[in-house]
């Protein structure tokens, strides 16, 4: 005797209880596997360029190292801390700021909140402006008093410093 299951109409299975359990297990495993494959493929697609580009264009180094993060891409910061590249892209992980370098514009010491450059700029009443350069557009924050600070310098707490490498360090990870 055979029976056709509604969810997989083309699969015929035996109705004995042990066989039923085994079949159900196999079907469930196949379903999970296919779901996992799809999710992995989607994650791979989603993490191709925008994730890497977001890390690199933010001035940090994108790396894949077998010994770190299970070989998945990481975005590493100047203090040698790092985030999973996808988490950095999603904004759920970011570099540690050094608030005392930029007291007026950064979050208080001890804050666990990860503040993006946009958050710091806007919370200070500033506006983000995209400025063309022959090497690609850069973002600067224009504060209410008219002073400006490079966006990367803000995110690293080095506003006002002589920081020639702030964009250039991403070239260590050149395409």
């Amino acid at each position, binding site marked *: 005797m055979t029976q056709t299951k509604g969810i997989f109409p083309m699969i015929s299975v035996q109705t004995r209880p042990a066989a039923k359990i085994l079949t159900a297990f196999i079907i469930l495993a196949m379903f999970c596997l296919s779901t996992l494959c799809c999710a992995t493929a989607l994650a791979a697609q989603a993490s191709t360029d*925008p994730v890497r*580009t977001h890390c690199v264009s933010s001035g940090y180094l994108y790396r894949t190292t077998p010994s770190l993060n299970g070989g998945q891409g990481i975005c590493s910061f100047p203090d040698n801390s790092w985030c999973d590249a996808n988490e950095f892209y999603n904004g759920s992980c970011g570099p540690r700021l050094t608030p005392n370098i930029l007291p007026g514009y950064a979050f208080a010491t001890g804050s666990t909140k990860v503040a993006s450059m946009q958050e710091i700029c806007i919370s200070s009443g500033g506006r983000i402006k995209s*400025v063309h350069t022959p*090497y690609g557009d850069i973002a*600067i924050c224009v504060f209410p008093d008219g002073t400006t600070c490079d966006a990367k310098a803000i995110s690293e707490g080095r506003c006002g410093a*002589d920081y*020639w490498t*702030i964009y250039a*360090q991403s070239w260590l990870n050149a*395409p």
Partner: protein
Amino acid sequence: MKNFSAIIALAFLLLLSTAFAEDVSADQLKQMTIKSADEVASYDYSRMAQTAIVYKNESLEDGFVATKTTVGKVNLTAQSGWWSHQLKDTGTGEVLLWQGYFINGKEYWKEGDNWTEFILNDSRAVMEDYNDLPGQAELLNYSDMIITGSEEIEGLDCYKITAEPIAAVQKAIIGTQIFASYLASPFSLPDEFEADDFDFENTSIIENSDVSVTAWVSKNDSLLRRMSIDSSLNLTPAILKIYEQNFTIQSTLHETTDYTDFDQPVQIELPTEALNSSYRMQGADWRWGVFGLVEP
């Protein structure tokens, strides 16, 4: 005689008023250019960039020259954009092609013959990237600029402007140029560059680099019509904090962009082959990096 003097005086006043009518301060022109760039509905642009890098030390003299030409269209009404880059490695004669489309909230890249469709988190930001003009107007805005005279561009009477970008922008350009120079270099990048606290020798780098901007803004509508950027750098051992006799890396970059067909009908259509996109399997050729970030 009285009438003749009156006519002369009137003519003088007319000339004077005409002269003042054309007069505009640099700050006023900055604001007008920003406003005009924000109000356009569509435009085309073309850009030519050329870089030349010379490497020298005691035993070696080498060089790298490449050009990158770009054409692009932007339709802000339809929220769509397109750019096409062609990079030519002058030394080998190799040509690399890269196109980008932003249509219906989706972005597609064509690299060589391969298409990739990107999953976008923030399509508004991507459209801002395709909208090339405001960033150039902001470069003028964040520069010390002087109106040096008038010149015609494509038959349009324009203010000619020379400008020097603010320090933050200059540092971004020169700092990137240093590392971009090393992409084609026969010399390896000094290990110290990876150190957290490494920075270049400030006085030497200022003395050995220059960034200048020349722009043309039409008088009738304050639209940016042409912008040229020149950046030159002479990397010396002092800048790099290394000790090597007769070592230099000289790098020049020249870029000119022309903007045309403002508010004219623009058609940007995605080729049907783009829908057969596959995953992007590898990064870009390193030579794109000589002209900056991988993104356009």
